[in-house]
């Protein structure tokens, strides 16, 4: 098995995802022990424009793959690109974000090259020469640590916001265009269009700050209050399932077991009881603030800071205070 690492430089809407620099940092944890080199591959529209942005972050070379067959995302096309790179260069590890693209692409690409896939990892390290990856299971009720046993390449998807992003390390990387080698006509499922969420607010899976509301919000209009607070941070608004089921919020912002798994720096839960299925989605948030009328609400067992009180009174004051601080 090779010791070099390939980082999948995910591009969405023509821009490199923030998680890519975190992947480079994770790759450096591996190569720091194995002595391998780190390369990246950027696929799709925007790849050429974005490649210089990560040049000099400790990458040896960056492959830019943007032809007709891969302009739009498809798991088949992108998996073929990764498989051919792994085949030619003998990468031992392929890192990608645990994003909707990474999670769709990773297992298919791993299967193509007889590799193995560790999804949604929160930590990687080399222990006694072997890779060890830590990932949550049972909706974050437990963790497992996995190690590969075969000698196929190891694909790892890493949860965004878990590893400090790589910084510039000086020097520059060799950037080279590369044909995809894929025949567009042979791809059976290809993305034709991306329909953005209504409202155009930041997505909960990507935001550093999330202000979430539960059943206690009482009506949809009250979510504007949470938006105001979130806006101060450029953050996202989330919701519990109860709020979604009651029609106060849209399903794409639901946080939890049957919603999104989020991992922000700050999660403010307003009028959310903290049911186990909600915790499943947000328990790894770095700082959790709970605002709840009920001092015995289970959310306080997971929160770092809590206020017992009426959110309709507290949230506007908090918004005002934070606004003052940020001025």
């Amino acid at each position, binding site marked *: 098995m090779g010791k070099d690492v390939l980082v999948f430089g995910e591009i969405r809407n023509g821009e490199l995802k923030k998680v890519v620099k975190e992947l480079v940092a994770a790759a450096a944890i591996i190569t720091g022990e194995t002595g391998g080199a780190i390369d990246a591959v950027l696929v799709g529209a925007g790849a050429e424009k974005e490649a210089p942005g990560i040049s000099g972050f400790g990458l040896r070379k960056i492959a830019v793959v943007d032809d007709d067959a891969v302009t739009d995302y498809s*798991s*088949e096309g992108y998996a073929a690109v990764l498989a051919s790179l792994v085949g030619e260069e003998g990468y031992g590890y392929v890192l990608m974000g645990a994003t*909707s693209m990474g*999670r*769709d692409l990773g*297992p*298919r690409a791993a*299967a193509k090259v*007889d*590799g*193995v*896939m560790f999804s949604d990892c929160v930590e990687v390290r080399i222990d006694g020469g072997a890779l*060890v990856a*830590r990932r*949550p299971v*049972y909706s*974050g*009720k*437990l*963790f*497992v*640590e*996995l*190690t*590969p*046993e*075969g000698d*196929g390449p190891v694909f790892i998807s890493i949860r965004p916001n878990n590893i400090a992003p790589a910084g510039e390390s000086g020097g520059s990387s060799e950037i080279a265009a590369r044909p995809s080698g894929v025949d567009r006509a042979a791809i*059976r*499922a290809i993305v*034709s*269009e*991306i*329909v953005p969420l209504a409202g155009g607010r*930041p*997505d909960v899976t*990507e935001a550093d700050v999330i202000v979430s509301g539960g059943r206690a919000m009482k009506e949809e209009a009250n979510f504007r209050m949470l938006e105001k607070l979130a806006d101060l*941070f450029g953050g996202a608004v989330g919701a519990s399932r109860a709020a979604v089921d009651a029609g106060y919020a849209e399903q794409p912002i639901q946080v939890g*077991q*049957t919603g999104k798994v989020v991992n922000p*720096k*700050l999660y403010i839960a307003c009028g959310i009881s903290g049911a*186990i299925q909600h915790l499943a989605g947000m328990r790894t948030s*770095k700082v959790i*603030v*709970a605002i709840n009328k009920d001092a015995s609400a289970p959310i*306080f067992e*997971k929160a*770092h*800071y*809590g*206020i*017992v*009180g009426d959110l309709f*009174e*507290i949230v506007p*004051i*908090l918004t005002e*205070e*934070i606004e003052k601080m940020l001025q």
Partner: protein
Amino acid sequence: MKIIVLLKRVPDTEAKILINQEGDGIREDGVKFIINTYDEYGIEEGLRLKEKLGGDSKVTVVCAGPEESTEVIRTALAMGADDAVHICDPALTKPNPFTIAEVLAKAISEEGFDIIFCGKQGIDDDMAQTQSILAEKLDIPQVNNATVFELADDLSKVLLNRRIEGGDEKVETSLPVIISCEKGLNDPRYASLPGIMKAKKKEIRGKNLADLGFNEVPSSGKSRILKWLPMPKGGECKMVEAEETVDTVKELARLLREEAKVV
């Protein structure tokens, strides 16, 4: 149309999950098991498709799992599935998604298929891998996290939305295809009493590895769990209190800035 629905037996979402004494898995005693939550959307979508197409369309449930999985298979049959394949082998106690995908691929190929529905992930190991590996092994396209599914009237293509960050991707694809289902795709039905009665007579075809032509556990994608770890407890919650609400909130804001350093 031959519709396959994949099913997995998993611990109930409410279940308290504890590491077993050997430290190599979870304690199963006292844990209630259910149909994987996301698989329910797959069953529902399969049944709706069959109802829409009529004729000789058929929904076959395929489940790889321990003997006890019969219970969740019966539930799916009671919801309206026609028959089931249950892959059960003592050698499959701690399988990885590559092994399961290989075993499923064999069973599904033997059944024949036009469309495969499953959940977007198992709510136990949360890997979301099996469907994509299976797609690769069967050499068919995959569409994960579907929130909208439409089959063209001439059955030539499928139109789907799949949930991504900040929106939906629109995808068009041909049959056969595997589709993993996201919440929001539909509202799964309950098993009716007549359904439960009928389910008792429906066929569950049990298969072991040998029946499927495997001499040993297929094991590409080899890996090993080194350790099971409990979730860290999380720090004590600092309750912020003051005489006046305004002061309480001011104190919270100060703590967020000076102590937690998130403002």
